């Protein structure tokens, strides 16, 4: 029957047929869109023109036609402009309606000047009748509101007439509204109210405070997740920048209009640099289109590296502008650039078994901390004593006004032969070292130079009864080497005896803390990829993740299960760490997690897997289950993430 109407109104094979064809042959739904828009746009032109005359009061009030302008001297012009389309005046509305009624009769006859004049007359008639009919009410109202208007308008009869028209319109509008139920016509919301109720307004359910001041760069804005992320951000009133590869009309159409589009490739550092400037957060949901190693490397590894580097550079720029006083600046604890810089560091050796004779007969311990000719501070030596260790320590002297509690962890830039060290922090009153408490964390280095982040949260008390580390109280930093216990089977005779060590120190810095995450990376959990390519994909993703972790940015890495195209918020989610998830997850849920994580302090510096809940076998429940059902202002993310480890 629909088609019947189509056929009746349009020539056969018109809009309807075209639509059906499009439906048949469309290769992809997105392709179908322009096709679909074609006929409707074609119709739209025609409709648009006729509509203008047919137009509702909205267009009537906003854009008075000739007729309206003449007859309606005041009514349409002033209040029409003032209250835009929402507060429609009753009078013009009625006229528009009556006119339309007539137009309906002569439907397709062409609009000529003569008919317009004719209408004008009719309208005057209408107006008069109307005024007679409801005049009494109008007058009553006029008296009420007439006090101030007398003074202003009394002089000019035209002004007076206009004013009384306005008042009458207002009264009529209210009167006719009385007979309505708001469900039937509550279209008359003024625009300023919309500001409160809708876009970023406090009463809109999606609103995030401060969203207007936050610019988010979405990398891969046209991806399955990225599309939804952009929409969610727009709904919440964020400023959104989108990095896309191609500047096609198709791509542009896909993104909301007020999105700031940057064209570029994540593999190209220069475009990335321009993209990140001005942004305060990044959501990275680009992923390689193929599993070709080059592609994977470019997007999933090098891309993340480039973007995080560019963003960190941008932060550093900001930090420099404020001469290191920015909240983004790291705090330099020690820099080993000259022989003098070694002052204050004490080399010490000891043993965990102070009373055993055995240590005496062992080969012994040797250690030195020197500034080499190559300009490097090198801690080297060997520990052959069983239970022996070597350490260097320094009492920290922080610049005035800065305390470590504003920092998140320590960053070591070191080189050497890739041994594992223990970092020990001492807290307590400076005067009495006997009361100090010790906290330790392991730091694993690589052969060659690397940077290692050791978050304060990783430190454990030496004495289990002690409270967790309070960075504010830290006064001494120690780096200790202790050889790993040799296993009997180990071929320890190889060139790298684990009891030899060499540690080249470049600098030690404290990482600034942040309440929020800076960079959200959508990675993948690995399940659901075809097995023969999984290794490569995961390798690239892993490298990208590592690059981000080392960048020093506050990061959140989301590793969703296989993505499904379905609406989000329907099923409970599992947040987990450690490659144990097996279920899929909808793109919308991943997008939701990304957006929620932007302002969630528990999401900072976390990597986690996420998927739909599944029913675990009896006795096999390994998961922390955090169910959520969609509801207003539901923040499922904070409780889910607060139980997960940081800096994994």
């Amino acid at each position, binding site marked *: 029957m*629909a088609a019947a*109407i189509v*056929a009746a*109104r*349009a020539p056969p094979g018109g*809009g*309807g047929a075209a*639509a*059906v064809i*499009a439906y*048949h042959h*469309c*290769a992809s*739904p997105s392709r179908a869109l322009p096709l*679909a828009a074609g006929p*409707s*746009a074609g*119709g739209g032109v025609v*409709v648009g023109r006729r*509509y203008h005359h047919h137009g*509702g009061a909205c*267009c009537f009030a906003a854009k008075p036609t000739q007729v309206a302008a003449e007859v309606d001297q005041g009514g349409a012009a002033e209040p029409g402009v003032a209250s835009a389309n929402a507060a*429609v005046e009753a009078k013009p509305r*009625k006229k528009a*309606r009556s006119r339309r*009624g007539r137009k*309906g*009769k002569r*439907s397709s006859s062409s609009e000529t000047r003569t008919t317009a004049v004719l209408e004008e007359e009719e309208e005057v008639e209408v107006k008069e009748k109307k005024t007679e009919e409801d005049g009494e009410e109008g007058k009553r109202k006029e008296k009420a509101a007439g006090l101030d208007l007398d003074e202003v308008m009394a002089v000019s009869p035209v002004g007076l007439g206009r004013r009384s028209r306005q008042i009458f319109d207002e009264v009529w509008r209210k009167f*006719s509204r*009385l*007979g*309505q*139920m*708001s469900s*039937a*016509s*509550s279209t*008359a919301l*003024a625009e300023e109210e919309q500001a*409160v*109720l809708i876009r970023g*307004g406090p009463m*809109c*359910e999606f609103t995030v405070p401060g969203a207007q001041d936050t610019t988010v760069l979405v990398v891969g804005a046209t991806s399955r997740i990225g*599309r939804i992320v952009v*929409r969610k951000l*727009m*709904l919440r009133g964020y400023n959104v920048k989108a990095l896309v590869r191609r500047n096609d009309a198709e791509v542009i*159409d896909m993104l*909301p*209009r007020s999105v700031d589009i940057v064209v570029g490739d994540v593999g190209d550092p220069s475009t990335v640099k321009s993209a990140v400037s001005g942004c305060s957060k990044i959501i990275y949901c680009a992923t390689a289109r193929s599993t070709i190693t080059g592609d994977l490397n470019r997007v999933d590894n090098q891309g993340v590296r480039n973007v995080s580097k560019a963003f960190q550079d941008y932060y550093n720029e900001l930090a420099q502008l404020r001469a290191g006083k920015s909240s983004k600046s790291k705090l330099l604890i020690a820099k080993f650039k000259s022989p003098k810089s070694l002052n204050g560091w004490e080399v010490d050796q000891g043993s965990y078994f102070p009373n055993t004779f055995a240590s005496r007969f062992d080969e012994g311990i040797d250690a030195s901390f020197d500034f080499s000719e190559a300009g490097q501070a090198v801690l080297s030596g060997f520990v052959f004593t069983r239970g022996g260790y070597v350490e260097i320590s320094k009492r920290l002297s922080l610049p005035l006004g800065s305390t470590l509690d504003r920092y998140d962890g320590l960053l070591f830039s070191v080189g050497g032969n890739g041994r594992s060290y223990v970092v020990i922090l001492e807290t307590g009153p400076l005067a009495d070292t006997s009361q100090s408490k010790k906290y330790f964390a392991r730091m694993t280095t690589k052969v060659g130079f690397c940077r290692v982040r050791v978050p304060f949260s990783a430190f454990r008390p030496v004495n289990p009864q002690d409270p967790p580390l309070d960075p504010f109280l830290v006064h001494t930093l120690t780096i200790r080497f202790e050889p790993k216990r040799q296993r009997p089977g180990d071929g320890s005779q190889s060139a790298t005896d684990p009891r030899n060590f060499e540690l080249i120190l470049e600098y030690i810095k404290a990482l600034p803390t942040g309440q929020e995450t800076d960079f959200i990376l959508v990675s993948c959990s690995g399940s659901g990829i075809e097995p023969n390519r999984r290794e490569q994909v995961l390798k690239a993703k892993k490298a990208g993740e590592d690059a981000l972790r080392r960048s020093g940015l506050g990061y959140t890495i989301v590793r969703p299960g296989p993505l499904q195209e*379905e*609406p989000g918020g329907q099923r409970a989610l599992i947040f987990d760490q450690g490659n144990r998830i097996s279920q899929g997850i*909808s793109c919308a*849920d991943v*997008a939701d997690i990304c957006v929620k994580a932007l302002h969630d302090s528990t999401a900072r510096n976390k990597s986690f897997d996420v998927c739909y809940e599944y029913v675990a076998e009896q006795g096999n429940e390994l998961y922390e289950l955090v169910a959520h059902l*969609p*509801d*207003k202002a539901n923040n499922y993310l904070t409780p889910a993430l607060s139980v997960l480890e940081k800096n994994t």
Partner: protein
Amino acid sequence: MASSTSLAALPSQLASPARRAALSRSATARPRHHHHPLLREPPKGCRLVVTCNAQTAVPTSIAQGTPVRPTSILVVGATGTLGRQVVRRALDEGYDVRCLVRPRPAPADFLRDWGATVVNADLSKPETIPATLVGIHTVIDCATGRPEEPIRTVDWEGKVALIQCAKAMGIQKYVFYSIHNCDKHPEVPLMEIKHCTEKFIQDAGLDYLIIRLCGFMQGLIGQYAVPILEEKSVWGTDAPTRIAYMDTQDVARLTFIAMRNEKASKKLLTFAGPRAWTTQEVITLCERLAGQDANVTTVPVAVLRFTRQLTRFFQWTNDVADRLAFSEVLSSDTIFSVPMNDTYQLLGVDSKDILTLEKYLQDYFTNILKKLKDLKAQSKQTDIFF
């Protein structure tokens, strides 16, 4: 075949006062067997061609083409109070939203800004409809004719065309918003049309979901809250009717929950707010929250009814009469509310999550008053500056 002729003849009847009688008769006498012939055996040749085409097209296209994604929806009436909330909710839940919007001089840019696709079509011009339905899984219909235009163009003819088109093009779900108690007030044209549309959908053979609504809290703001703040007179009636107002955001949220719920398929649900209010109660609440007395002008319902009767006599005021038609409803001692417990249970929703009117208005007034204060502070500052 009476209904088919009346359908075809409706456009020409539009302007005549007699059409009211014609429609109500045809609507009440519009049983099941009248519709199916329309859908299955179209009477005229030219109709036959396209109808067959569309009906046979559906299975083949599913077999050969890309299957329609369940996340693609079309929202009709997306610029309305409810429509825009539906669009927002849909976008947030990850749907690909297409909005059917009438071509207009000021395009609905805000929809595009949120990430929806806007297509131009006019329900009163059925030839523009099919193209908009391509690749759509679910149609959500929140369109209601603007109060200033003849009710039949959009609300009846347009809807009939849309539903038939949806059927022909294999739309897999049709969500329709109706009005509570619409079957009990055939004298109100809008409610009568809604009721007829409900029946039409039920007979069309689509998978549908009909949601009857009572009243929106958003409507109260313009009607009572703003005038009270501006110290203008508030017009109320002395009607004893109670309406259980509901937040449109809640309506949109529940809609999507219901839409995905298999148990709610082909059901008629009624959404009502937590409590039913009379006009007087709402005004009192607004006064309390605004901290100032309202200048209330109470118009007896009798006056409204009288005006309606009066306006009905003239052809050119017929639409005014239609608009005032709710006075009939108001004067009857109805409560626009339903117990929601079963619905909550069906949808798995907690009743605590549904916003109450007190909370809603309180939020509104707190925000508005804060804004006003900010504005005042700003203007003071500029005073100092200059």
